[in-house]
């Protein structure tokens, strides 16, 4: 296992303007300097760099490398959150521009902790990370009844749903909720991911989920992968 390194996006020079450099923004996101991240993104917008390019070339490298380090436990929750905050500071400026360019969110994700369980922290971190990665996330909070999940999925025409559970007594409700999606005839319309400390890939298979995320970054990568496959299948 080696310390993940920042991946410099190939050919970024061609996509930026003359004499531009991203290195300081990569570092700002990596180190969680949200003030600087905000400044730098603003400059990039002002010189006319495409918002999509700012996101991909300017913000994601620092975010992704920290995400990988988080997965490998080299950094921990507080540091991941600081990076997320810096990322968010930049994203806040670009998001309206992306929307104006008719860029849709990557996908719509419904997130919540299952019935009987009040643990919030894990799923709220997953939410922040998914939002940063470009998903629209509707967070239903904790102790969520299966019916609420199904309603929200229908209402928002969700692509993906995530169930979090932290208790030995409530992981069982991940299965119950999935079964309810089947009964309601809504199972095929969504991808279902599960997570939370006591869960495992094997439990995900057993309870009929489409995937398991051991930590917030793996959740993001999995969501990215599934949505890309889904879009490809549609095209």
């Amino acid at each position, binding site marked *: *296992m*080696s310390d993940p390194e920042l991946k410099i996006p190939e050919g970024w020079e061609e996509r930026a303007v003359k004499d531009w450099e991203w290195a300081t923004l990569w570092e700002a996101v990596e180190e*969680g300097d*949200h003030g600087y991240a905000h400044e730098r993104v603003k400059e990039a917008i002002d010189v006319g760099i495409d918002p999509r390019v700012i996101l991909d070339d300017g913000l994601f490298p620092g975010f992704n490398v920290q995400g990988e380090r988080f997965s*490998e*436990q*080299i*950094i*921990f*929750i*507080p*540091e991941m*959150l*600081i990076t*997320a*905050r810096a990322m*968010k500071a930049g994203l806040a400026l670009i998001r309206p521009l992306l929307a104006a360019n008719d860029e849709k969110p990557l996908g719509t994700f419904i997130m919540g902790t299952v*019935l*009987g*369980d*009040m*643990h*919030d*922290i894990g799923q*709220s971190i997953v939410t*922040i990370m998914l939002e940063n990665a470009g998903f629209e996330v509707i967070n239903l909070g*904790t*102790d969520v009844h299966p019916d609420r999940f199904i309603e929200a999925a229908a209402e928002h025409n969700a692509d993906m749903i995530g169930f979090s559970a932290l*208790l*030995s*007594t*409530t992981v*069982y409700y991940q299965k119950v909720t999935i079964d309810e999606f089947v009964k309601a005839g809504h199972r095929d319309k969504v991808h279902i991911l599960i997570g939370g400390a*006591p869960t*495992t*890939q*094997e439990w995900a298979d057993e309870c009929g989920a489409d995937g398991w995320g051991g930590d917030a970054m793996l959740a993001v990568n999995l969501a990215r992968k599934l949505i890309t496959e889904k879009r490809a299948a549609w095209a």
Partner: protein
Amino acid sequence: MADTIQLQIIDETGASSTLTAIRGETILEAAHRSGVEIIATCGMRGRCRSCRCRIVQGVVPPATVSDTVQLGHEEIRERFRLACQTKLLDDTVIKPMPPKSESGHQLLAGHVETSALDIYSGVEKVHIEAKAPVSEHHQTSDIEEIFMTLGVSLKSNEVPLQLLQDLPIKLREKKGDLTVTMFRGKIVDIEVGDTTEQIYGMAIDIGTTSIVGSLLNLKTGEELSSVGMLNPQSPFGADLMSRIAYAQFKPKNLAQLRGKILSGLNQLVGQAVEKADVSAANIYKVVLVGNTCMHHILLGIDVSYLGLAPYAPAVRDGQTIAASELPLKSVPRAHICTLPILAGFVGADALACVLATRIYESDTVRGLVDIGTNGEMVLGSKDHLIACSAPAGPAFEGAQIRHGMRGAVGAIERVHIGEDVICKTIGDDPAVGICGSGLIEACARMSDANVLNKMGSIKATPGLPKEIFNRIRKSDHGQEFVLVWSNDGGKSEDIALTQGDVRQLQLAKAAIFSGVMMLMKEMNVKPSEMDELLLCGGFGNYVDIESAVRIRLLPEMDVNRITYAGNAALMGAQMATLSDAEIDRADELVGKIEHVALAARPDFQEIFIDGMNFDTPSVREITGVEEATAL
């Protein structure tokens, strides 16, 4: 029954037992069904290594993901598997091989200062000279004669039938020379001769992990013996949630857990009376304290909903039950008293701690904290008391720590880092693992030595002494720090602390830290204004206080004001055994202590995340954690 197979289990002594298993069930399921105990610390979730076994003969089932994660490729090649994950395919011979010795677990007994107590236990023995009825004219009976001699107005249907059955013989055996035992005004025993000196009670603290008890003389307050054992429910899950999950919606499993604890208690009583050389029939009062889950299981109350939000207990009030009703066979003449429960996860044990530490009569704000898998804390003074539960998880018991183990022989318990690392183990044996107190001290010293940064990352920074630098290495489990080399103080392998272990500790200590901080916030006191913080419970008493403050497991306060309170839960139970007034006090207190539900507090998350770091206030300015979590 075509689909059964034979499973042969060889224990460490070499003895083997063969049982019939169903093809496709796990080794552990088969073993437990037949009463062979294999420890399942994580509750059969494939998340620990306690159920490790070796396939000695037969088809070696393919390794599951959990096997690979927990055991590593090498052990898998050597036919090690997790019993809870491995499905039986055909006739198999296995040998359970839990990685570390679970024996010799440190138990802690409490000692109560009896002089401060008003000793009236509710049990009284009266020596009488009763007369048998003499004339047929008198409309009387044996028992009415006894009532009359005692001078009490009772009805015969208030006397246990059992006592009436052999009364005629007893009354006449020594011409009415009898000792009558009363509990709270009711007759509970009648013996021939003068037995007024044989008047005993027992206090028992049923912990999720261990059970401790003490046998007391109800007249003098003297402790006659103290005993302890591991909770016999342990094979069904180390933490209480795993036990709830086991019993949830499965009455049979609940009954099984209940059976385990009842027979465990009978065994404990047996040990206690044997040590003190007294008769268990002279135990008249037993006070039991424990967390809500242990309490419910003991009484056979369904725990299904205790494990689901809003985690409500079925009853909160203290109960008094005749032992024969429970049934607790070892103490046929006793009554069992339970102390009241505060909330789903703040049990009678917490209340017993309040009794023992008397913080309810303090002028200044004091606090008590039980550091454990399911941490409980109470804070306040004579004006106001508040409580909460902060679930640290099993890291302090060594679970989910790569080389973690309980406080048994060979566990690293002290760590010193200078030019090199010096570790002390329990019993000064070769190191086989690290226990909770060692883990805390290791992290404190690693922080001091700059091996751990503020955020808990293991970093090989330049300028470290060479011996220290060499101990930092990369492994399959990420970065790790070697505490003991196998050829220098170790037993069979290097004992290292991995990055993942530090992360587990960070979550655990943040839970305790943030629980205490929330209560202080609620009370509006700063750590510096706290008069005293008492560490209760088995684990708290082994923790090095300075290290605990260093890593921010405990709030930043003067270490001289943090004190060990011993096993306060048992002490509280002892007090309630010796003095019925303490039981009344507990009933009164339970209505006064306010329970703070942390999950309902929006500010909890911020404090919790801040509490993961190892360094003090400035860290927040550096990291801006406050703002980050307010995203």
